[in-house]
């Protein structure tokens, strides 16, 4: 289940809870109060969203290193957030190859739960930071930007 689907279902569930709570408040004649509301318990339900937080493996990082280094379309595509009908731009792979990126796996760290970052260095010694998230088990590049 995608995160969005989970959010939609959660939202629907929440609205039901909200409606019931609101009706209960009205029935009991108690004025609605934001402080009370903020202390309301979370709804419980059947939704158990997957927590795609597992650390990238050495094998995955090796694949990423190879993909960035060679700029091979087939190797890169799994790491890029492309739509179902989209393809990697040939201009992108050409320019990426010219960059001459080298991944530094040792820099891997968990920036925030489920978001991993690692760095790469290009031919001109410019450092790039790559943000990685896992979607349906596959590592994807959330961003690849100049390191801050």
């Amino acid at each position: 289940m995608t995160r969005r689907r989970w959010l939609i279902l959660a939202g629907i569930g929440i609205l039901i809870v909200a409606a019931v709570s609101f009706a209960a408040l009205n029935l009991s004649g108690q004025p609605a109060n934001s402080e009370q509301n903020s202390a309301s318990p979370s709804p419980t339900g059947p939704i158990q969203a997957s927590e795609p937080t597992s650390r990238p493996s050495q094998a995955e990082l090796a694949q990423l290193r190879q993909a960035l280094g060679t700029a091979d379309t087939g190797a890169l595509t799994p790491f890029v957030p492309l739509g179902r009908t989209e393809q990697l731009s040939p201009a992108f792979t050409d320019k990426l190859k010219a960059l001459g990126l080298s991944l530094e796996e040792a820099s891997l760290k968990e920036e925030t739960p489920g978001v991993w970052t690692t760095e790469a260095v290009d031919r001109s010694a410019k450092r790039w930071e790559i943000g990685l998230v896992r979607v349906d088990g596959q590592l994807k590049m959330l961003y690849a930007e100049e390191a801050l």
Partner: protein
Amino acid sequence: MRKIVAAIVGAVLFGVATAVAGAAPALADERPSVCPTQPISITSKLTERPVIYVHGWLGKADKASAAAADGPVQLLQKRLGAGYRVLAFDYSWANQEWGATKKTRECLTSYMREASLAFQASGGDGRILAVGHSMGGIAIRAASTLLEGVAGGNNMLAGVVTLSTPHQGSPWGGTIYADLYQGYKGYTGESTPLPASGTSAALCLAWPRDRSCDSVPYLPVGTKVATIGTQIMMTRKLFDIPYVEGPTAEFPLFGDAIVPTISSNGYVPSAAPAPYPKGEFLGEQRPVCSESAGYLSQQLVKGKAKIGLVPTVIATLAGTIVEEFIDMRALDTMMQGKADISQLSFVVLAQASECFHTNMPSSSRVDDAAVAYLKKMAPKAVGSDLGPVLSATKLVTVRPWVDGSEANPSRVIDGKNATNAYCNGSNVAARADAFRCFVDQGVHDPCLQNPANAKEYLCYFGSEKVLIQNVRAESTSVSGTAAPEQSSPFLVTLADGTVCRTSSGAGPPAIPGYPYWTGSCSGPHAGIWRARYADRGSNPASGLLEKTSSGVWHVAIEEDARPGKVSLYPVAVAYR
């Protein structure tokens, strides 16, 4: 996940509670509103042209935010510089109510009027400017209809600049997404860009607008208007290189992510079928911010976006952004102009953009554009090319029978043998002792009655003074009751010999900026003596404009030789 759920639940419940407490029905209460004290109070005299900033939904203009160096009030003041005084209207007590509701518009009208009068009190022309962010623009438009009902109000508002005002609503309006969005944000205490669902602000944000929503009229004739609406373009890059081609390589959000530019720059058709044009539309600007989704994601993840999200939410959001790119639903629905939950990740991401809805008033690009419009809207400063420069306008209170000015009249008319001879209240002078006298076929106005002889009058026509004798006052009622020194001028002379007299009657059609007329002028600048306000009789300076620091008043003349164009000329002497 639990935190997100708790936040969303809280937000939804908060929304429900707010809706119950704050939803504003259509106008039913006719009682005048009691307006809260404004954080920026207006002093009795404002020596600089007032510019009133009106915040948007969920915003505020308390003392702290008005004084904040990076806040809209201070930024506008800094850019406008001397000659302008930026004030702020706060309606945080109703910022989840539709901006056109009764109390907001009444209180804003009152604040505007107060500013205008304070400016007039120091010799200014009383014309103010306003900047409305988001729903603040709606509030200004709504208040302007009330201004039309107060003396001089029709032309009080010289110009309005709206920043991201939903003139034509937003796809988010009337949806529950606002609550889900606020759920994303969690309780950070920061201002959020969408009002909670169920509130009138959210309901009336929808387009077409719900029938229960108070209408938003066009601005009055004589008010210039300009709109600014930003556009965020989201680019998809890795290593600063676009990785896809075609329309999805760079896609537009709904304008500033909340209000599409077709709405923020949609003033002109927004009140149709009301007749247009009203106001004078100066133009629109659409600053574009091209933002890299990757860069914004990095800012978000590294905690540099300062949008107040807890780490767990950031993590989920980061994953969702990637999913949305894969799924394409967000892009598809945005292309269709429909709001969808799938877009919320991008809305959150866009918060780090200068062009984002709530960031607009602090954007240097937006402020520069707004200030350029405001300076263009401010009534033209008086220049030395408009006529001879005088030291000061001489204001003369005519007092025949007291100062001896009745002596040596140009003509004497005796009504003793006339078939028709009587006087009644003057139509052109507001003084209690001013009359309009009819002697046979002649009409003389104004004529000042001799306090010692009610059948004797001295009539003023510039250089000509006519003494009328033996004419009875048919009516003791007069058109004005002002004391001589408090009455409006009925005659002015310019240094070049031009003489302007007040007139009565419907007058010529209004022209932009000058919906009223005062009279007519003869001499070198013969034409129509134009007026900005309908305040004759109630204002000792009626018909006089743009007093300089050296005390020179001006009159606005639409010269016969230049129809439709008004020039300001310095007044040598004004008689009242």
